C-alpha cells in the first residue's frame, strides 16, 4: 500500500514563526502536492512538484514556499506564519504515468497560528 506520511499531525505556532511541514511518500511517485483544506472552501492547491528540485505554483501560493531535494520528500514552508494560515494541510502524491486523478493523501497536518 502507498503510504504518505506527514510528520506532524498537530502544530501550534505563533505569528511570525517559520513553519516547516514535512511529507514523505514510499512509492517512488514523481508528483507531489500540497493542499490546504478549509471548511466550505474544499481543497485548494498551494504548490506541486513533478520531479526533484522542480516546483510549480498552485492556486494559492502566496505566503508559502516548498522544497523537494529528494524524490520521496516534499516540504511546505511558511516563512512567517500568519493567523490566516491556520488550516489543515494535506500532502499527496501520484505517479506521473497516472492520469486518472488518483492522489494518495497523508492524514493531514492541522496548523494553528496564534
Amino acid at each position, binding site marked *: 500500500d502507498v503510504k504518505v506520511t506527514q510528520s506532524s499531525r498537530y502544530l501550534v505556532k505563533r505569528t511570525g514563526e517559520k513553519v516547516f511541514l514535512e511529507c514523505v511518500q514510499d512509492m517512488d511517485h514523481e508528483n507531489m502536492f500540497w493542499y490546504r483544506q478549509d471548511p466550505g472552501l474544499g481543497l485548494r492547491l498551494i504548490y506541486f512538484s513533478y520531479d526533484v528540485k522542480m516546483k510549480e505554483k498552485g*492556486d494559492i501560493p502566496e505566503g508559502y514556499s516548498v522544497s523537494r531535494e529528494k524524490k520521496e520528500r516534499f516540504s511546505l514552508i511558511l516563512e512567517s506564519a500568519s493567523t490566516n494560515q491556520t488550516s489543515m494541510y494535506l500532502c499527496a502524491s*501520484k505517479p506521473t504515468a497516472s492520469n486518472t*486523478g488518483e492522489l494518495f493523501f497523508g492524514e*493531514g497536518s492541522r496548523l494553528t497560528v496564534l
Partner: protein
Amino acid sequence: QQQVKQSPQSLIVQKGGISIINCAYENTAFDYFPWYQQFPGKGPALLIAIRPDVSEKKEGRFTISFNKSAKQFSLHIMDSQPGDSATYFCAAHHRDDKIIFGKGTRLHILP
C-alpha cells in the same frame, strides 16, 4: 477557468435512500473526473473515477453519471448506509497534471 463547482454543501439522507451530489466544470482541458471520500481525521481517498468519453460508471453502490455536453457529472450512492457518512469531493484532472477539487459535500445518513 480551473473551477469545479459542487453542490449541495451538505446533505442528509435516510438510510436506504439515494444520495446525489452534483458537480459542474468549464475547462475542456480536464481529462479525468475522480470522486474522493474523506472520513473525519483522515485524508481523502479515491472512491471512483470516470473518463469524459464514458457516460456512466458503476462500482457497487456508487455510480458516476457524466454529461459531457452539459459539462456536468454527479455521484449517486444507492441504498445509502450510515457508514457512508463522510465528506465527498468531486475533482477534475487537468492535462498539466494538476487536480482541482470542488468545495465538498458533507453527507450524513440517518440510521
